[in-house]
């Protein structure tokens, strides 16, 4: 059975590390990226089943990164996460194909539940 591949995008190193460890423990093959640009680049060469993307990051934000990834024809299920109020973005991006918006701190059980359905 192929491991499901997941890309974690966050500018916080500890965030990337802890999420990567949790997901690896759960059996995912985890890659990480510290910016939206990096994420877009990685996605160009490598297919992912899911992308877990922070919204606010230096450079292009998570929303923009998600759109660029989509434009590359990448089919990954994208889950957004944010420490900020992003109500104004939710409706729009859900329509564009974002699977879910998660608020930080993350409810990890809920995250795994979402990924389980992937």
């Amino acid at each position, binding site marked *: 059975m192929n491991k499901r591949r997941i890309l974690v995008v966050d500018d*916080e190193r*500890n*965030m990337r590390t*802890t*999420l990567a*460890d*949790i997901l690896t*423990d759960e059996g995912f093959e985890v890659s990480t990226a510290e910016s939206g640009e990096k994420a877009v680049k990685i996605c160009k060469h490598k297919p992912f089943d899911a992308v877990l993307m922070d919204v606010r990051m230096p450079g292009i934000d998570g929303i923009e990164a998600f759109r660029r990834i989509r434009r590359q024809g990448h089919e990954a299920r994208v889950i957004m996460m944010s*420490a*900020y*109020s992003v109500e104004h973005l939710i409706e729009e991006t859900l329509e564009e194909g974002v699977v879910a918006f998660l608020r*930080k*701190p*993350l409810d*990890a*059980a809920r995250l795994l539940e979402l990924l389980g359905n992937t």
Partner: protein
Amino acid sequence: MGAGSTPRFMDRRNVDKPENLQRRVTELEQLLDAVDGIVWEADARTSRFSYVSRKAERLLGYPIELWTSEPTFWQDHLHPEDREWATNYRCAGVDRGRDHEFEYRMIAADGQIVWLRDHVSVGPVDQPDAVLRGVMVDVSARREAEDRFARHSQALFALARSEALARGDFAGFSRLALETAARTLGVERMSVWLFNDERTVLQCRYLYEKSTDRHSSGIELEAARYPHYFSALSEGLFLAADDAQTDPNTNEFTEGYLKPLGITSMLDAPMRRGDDVIGVVCHEHVGPPRHWMPDEREFSAAVAHFFDHALEVERRRDAEANAREAQSRLLVQERRETQRVEAELERVRDRLVQQTQLSTIGQTVASIAHELRNPLAVIQNARFYLSRRTPETEPKWAEYLGIIEQEVNAADSIIVDLLEITRAKDPSRQEIDIVQLARSAFDRAVGAEGVRIEVQVPREPFLVHADPTQLRQVLRNLITNSVQAMDGPGKIVIKADDHQDHVLITFEDDGPGVPSELIDRVFEPLFTTRAKGTGLGLPICRQIVERHGGSIEVDRSDGPGARFTIRLPDSPGGEQATEGTGE
């Protein structure tokens, strides 16, 4: 003196003819009797009359013989008050040998006083038979007129300087003036009447009756019944009716009024304001009809003029008093309004300060709060990871990881509160059941173990028109506030009820209550009496409720138990009232 001007009895050419003498004496006596005065001759020393003309008898009523037979007739019939000085005056004139004139009173046979002006010619006084000759002229009429004039002047002077007139006290002036005029003119009934606005009725404002010394008022006369009298008055005529019962201007009153009261003469002086006749001052004489003397008419005209003046002063005084009263009412009103506006301003200013504080605090903390979420998120992740790997042999690890989770959640809910302030989101209203809302808010409350909640509503579901998320937060903040205040087991009672155009929600706990000195401060941002808590829960409640067009207050009661009252408008009508305050 030419011959043509010499009287016949003085014609010297015939003086020596005795047959002419008696005729001359008779002619002389006729002449002396024709003089309008008593021609007399008396002893210079004793004043005993040796001759008086016929006029003496007519004037004083004593027979001529009495004048000449009584040695001291003159002295005896002088007025007692004049006797001494008049006698002395005459003696002095005789002593100096000078002619003199003087006026004195004599008592007539009928007891009347007669004023006489005596023109005395003093002849040579060095002989023992020296005589005085003179003419006494009756000046009573002039003297009476002078007396009346003095009385009238005195009366008018008294009225002019009366306190009542100066004060504009028409009633007081009327009493004084009516009494004064009645006494001065010797009139039985004095009254003052004023027209109504339509001039159809004369109303008796004040009436004085001299014989009984009684004041009254209130009679009315209708123009329709006394057309002549009213039309004469309206023309401004001064009515002087010597015989009021026959006078065309006053005889309308004869049967119904004059005869029953025995009134014979009337004198009515019009009162005026500018060109208008506004009333009348009436003099009603009882007794034999009297002739109204010109000076009496003038007096009554002057009194009427004083009445005009008194009325005008009263009118002005009333107008001034009204103006003053209106002004002071206005001042009081203005002061009250100012106080109200100031209080309102104060309130608005306080609110504005609180809102500004809230929003400034909000903006500052929002960015911090957001930033805090990132490390919290990492901690949470780390905890999750560790909890998955905790061996069952280490129960303490699991317990501590549980504590970390609780505290991360607690920290996060503080952040939620802080962020709520900056959101200032307009409520998106819908019909929601307050019972369910209260229960779900209670279920999410932290540390509410041992606290019971009771929701009392007149029916279930009890729907209110509000933003569910926001109203839930209000209830949750209140519950959290109560739970922290009670700090242990307790009871929360939430009641909701309909009112005319709003819903009242009361929220009570059995904690220590809010000290009355803190009541005004509990809604201030960052105000808290506890170590725990952000001091933002209640300000957020107020912000949300006010965004709904409602209000929230904490009840003033020094006993235990806090009680909050929330008023929420029934309909969306309340929204307009708060438009623009959502930011």
